[in-house]
């Protein structure tokens, strides 16, 4: 068995060497080759890839935990039904085709044939059914919402899954990759407590790499899956790499140096801070990928506690919106890595983004006038209002800079802001449990579908005391609620798009929170690192198509 694999892989390697540059991406990935952050070339077999992920994950499956770093590691071992291209459209992974019924009440998936779990068992529709019903629907923080309308999961044969819905749920197709909906092996998990299952720390998947070891505080080591289903356009078996080692380096400067010293090949998820990126500008030595985190569509925001009397007046919120210079914020704090935000749906969510909304250009006079109108006149000392602003000091150096920028901006219109830093736990407590704050800053993933990633911030039913990242502003607008709920259940793409546009307009009129900067997730890699396809969810790529130029 081993011998044969060795022989075939040698054959494949020489094939790969023969096939030159063009036409390499498999059919799956062909449409994604819009920008080419990776230099062209023929994939070379072999090599161990060293990847930095920060901080160290707590478990190695994202089937019920959506912490980014967990997804970054586990996506090489466990897989989802699809992955996403740069326009965030689904492309095949474990599912090769999918189809939504005209009434939107059934979604069927055709699964890939001949896929095996790493322990040799066959992958089948039963695994998908089990994971959806027992894990995503019950334990997954977003899955509960995404699959709430699922009434039944049918498995007419081993490679077909049909999801029956009580009302249309078009967003399901936007959340079924390895980050949002990772498939677990039923034969290992069934009948056991999923949350404490030992396989959570030593995953058994279908992916291109097999879990080998996890030395806590140090690294996770993965090795090539010799039986992986993936083949490139030439029929060469993937993955190309012999293995992947994830190194957990807690200090940002140490990561930067390790990448410079060649001890790392890839630093994922902006683990190299923007201020150090200038050291990796040399395209002869490094590649900087800005598309990997497109799927997350993260927006940096300032949120009002609208329970405060002065924030109940929307003119005050609008004044604040005019008082912050988003372009300067982007330049000064984010060092240009990102885009000024115009509303709750980021422009990367091309399907639903609308710029036909009320804008708040930087205008101090207008801000002052609105504050005057709202009755917050300047006192003799030049101040109108004293407020606190909470931020999570645990989120890194840039968190402090972000907060300071807001403070200085608001000072120009006579709003005196006192900064309150807390570590993550005390920050979350203060905002979501005690609800004792005036302003806060944070960054939130909006995901490819507004129903999943945006609705939670504005929905009245999501004002939930004690639960992080819910509607913490306490904003409630029955009209908006109706629009959002209608959009969630609208099967017709055009009508849904119109509803989501209306939703963006209402939010930008009311501004219960200020959408400031669409953040870019930065992946810095050595020039030796290549990937034959680009992905919108590249942070959670399987790396079946990744390869290293030999040293």
């Amino acid at each position, binding site marked *: 068995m081993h011998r044969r694999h060795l022989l075939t892989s040698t054959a494949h390697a020489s094939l790969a060497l023969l096939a030159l540059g063009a036409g390499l991406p498999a059919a799956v990935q062909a449409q994604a080759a819009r920008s080419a952050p990776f230099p062209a070339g023929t994939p070379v077999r072999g090599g161990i890839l060293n990847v930095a992920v920060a901080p160290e994950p707590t478990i190695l499956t994202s089937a019920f935990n959506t912490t980014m770093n967990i997804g970054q590691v586990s996506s090489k071992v466990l897989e989802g039904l699809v992955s996403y291209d740069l326009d965030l459209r689904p492309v095949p992974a474990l599912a090769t085709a999918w189809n939504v019924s005209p009434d939107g009440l059934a979604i069927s998936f055709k699964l890939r044939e001949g896929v095996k779990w790493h322990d040799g068992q066959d992958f089948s529709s039963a695994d998908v059914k089990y994971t959806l019903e027992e894990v995503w629907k019950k334990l997954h923080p977003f899955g509960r919402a995404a699959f709430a309308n699922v009434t039944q999961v049918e498995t007419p044969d081993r490679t077909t899954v049909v999801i029956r819905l009580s009302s249309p749920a078009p967003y399901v197709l936007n959340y079924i990759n390895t980050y949002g909906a990772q498939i677990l092996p039923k034969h290992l998990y069934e009948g056991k407590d999923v949350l404490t299952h030992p396989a959570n720390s030593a995953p058994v998947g279908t992916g291109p790499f097999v879990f080998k070891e996890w030395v806590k505080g140090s690294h996770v080591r993965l090795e090539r899956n010799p039986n992986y289903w993936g083949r490139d356009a030439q029929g060469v078996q993937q993955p190309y790499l012999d293995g992947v080692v994830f190194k957990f380096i807690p200090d940002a400067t140490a990561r930067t140096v390790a990448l410079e010293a060649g*001890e790392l090949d890839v630093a994922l998820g902006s683990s190299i801070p923007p201020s150090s990126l200038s050291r990796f500008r040399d395209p002869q030595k490094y590649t900087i990928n800005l598309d990997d985190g497109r799927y997350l569509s993260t927006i940096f925001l300032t949120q009002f506690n609208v329970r405060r009397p002065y924030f109940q007046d929307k003119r005050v919120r609008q004044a604040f919106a005019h008082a912050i210079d988003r372009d300067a914020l982007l330049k000064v704090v984010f060092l240009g890595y990102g885009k000024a935000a115009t509303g709750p749906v980021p422009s990367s969510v091309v399907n639903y983004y609308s710029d036909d909304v009320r804008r708040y250009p930087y205008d101090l006079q207008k801000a002052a006038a609105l504050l005057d109108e709202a009755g917050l006149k300047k006192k003799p000392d030049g101040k109108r209002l004293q407020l606190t602003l909470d931020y999570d000091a645990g989120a890194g150096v840039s968190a402090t800079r972000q907060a300071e920028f807001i403070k200085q901006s608001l000072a120009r219109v006579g709003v005196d802001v006192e900064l309150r830093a807390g570590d993550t736990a005390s920050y979350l407590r203060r905002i979501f449990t005690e609800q004792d704050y005036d302003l806060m800053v944070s960054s939130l993933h909006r995901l490819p579908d507004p129903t999943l990633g945006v609705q939670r911030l504005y929905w009245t039913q999501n004002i*939930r005391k004690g639960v992080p990242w819910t509607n913490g502003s306490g904003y409630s607008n029955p009209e908006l609620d109706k629009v959002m709920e209608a959009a969630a259940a609208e099967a017709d793409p055009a009508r849904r798009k119109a509803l989501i546009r209306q939703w963006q307009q209402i939010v930008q009129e009311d501004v219960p929170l200020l959408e400031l900067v669409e953040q870019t997730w930065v992946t810095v890699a050595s020039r030796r690192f290549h990937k034959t396809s680009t992905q919108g969810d590249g942070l959670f790529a399987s790396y079946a198509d990744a390869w290293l130029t030999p040293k």
Partner: protein
Amino acid sequence: MKPTSAHNAWRFLRRRLPQAVPVVVGIALLNFLVLQIAPGDVVDVLAGEAGAATPETMAQLRASFGLDQPVALQLWHYLGRLLTLDLGFSYRQNMPVRDLILDRLPATLLLMVAAMVIALVLGVALGVLSARKVHGWVDHLVSVVVLVAYALPTFWLGLMAIVLFSARLGWFPSGGMVDVAAAHTGWARVLDIAWHAVLPACVLATFYLAMYAKLMRSSMLEIYGADFIRTARAKGASEARVTLAHALRNALLPVATMLGYQVASLLSGAVLVESVFSWPGLGRLAFESILARDLNLLLGILLMSAVLVTLINIVVDVLYAFLDPRVQLASDATPSAPAQGLSP
């Protein structure tokens, strides 16, 4: 040590070790109560990291972690578990606390012992050198080195060491404890770990090195003026013998006192060094457990370090008797503090 003093030391240990138990339990109790003050719990952090949660999951998690129980009951359970040496479960790391600590302890001990040895050897050597050549250029040079080593923040020094010795010169690895890709075994592995330990151990040692050098210099100078040194010189002992046999042993007493105290601070120093050098040790684990409000784990680490510090202080007491036979280990009334008077 003479047989009688060994016997004394044994009697001393038999008396001191049981005394240490209530101290450690008291510390555990205090730790537990102090940590209740921190806002937020592990469920807040877990839900915060996941990016979304429901009140039901959070309540369910709190119930399964026992966090919904009254503090008094939690304390009762905690103390009960301690009796059976069960340190509880880390819900964040998905591992029993004891396993986690035992996994990470060797790395930290290695770092601490290496740093201590470097600090002691170099510190004592520099201090003696300074005292021998007092007010000469060697003394001045040592003073400057010591001042710089004392004043530099550890994490900055660590980063600079990485930048210089890893990135620029490429002599040492920038972090980690082993070369993960190489997967050495046997002696190659030992050498590999030693290679990785050089920078972090030296960086961790600098602060203590400076302290010991200063302490050593002043206590050597004090002893050089003592009567018994004059006697030794009068008897015709060589300067080397005076320094090494007569003065050094006495001058080491304050350093030994300091050493006992500093074991605790060494662990907090290890937090920074372990983070900068990605060293898979306990200091970093402790820091991460604070941020994650992983109180079971934090309590376990704190308890472990309390035990460690108590033990090392007992060892230091035994060491006193070895360095200065006038210190009576087994005497009941007098506390085993170092003798203050130096005249014989």
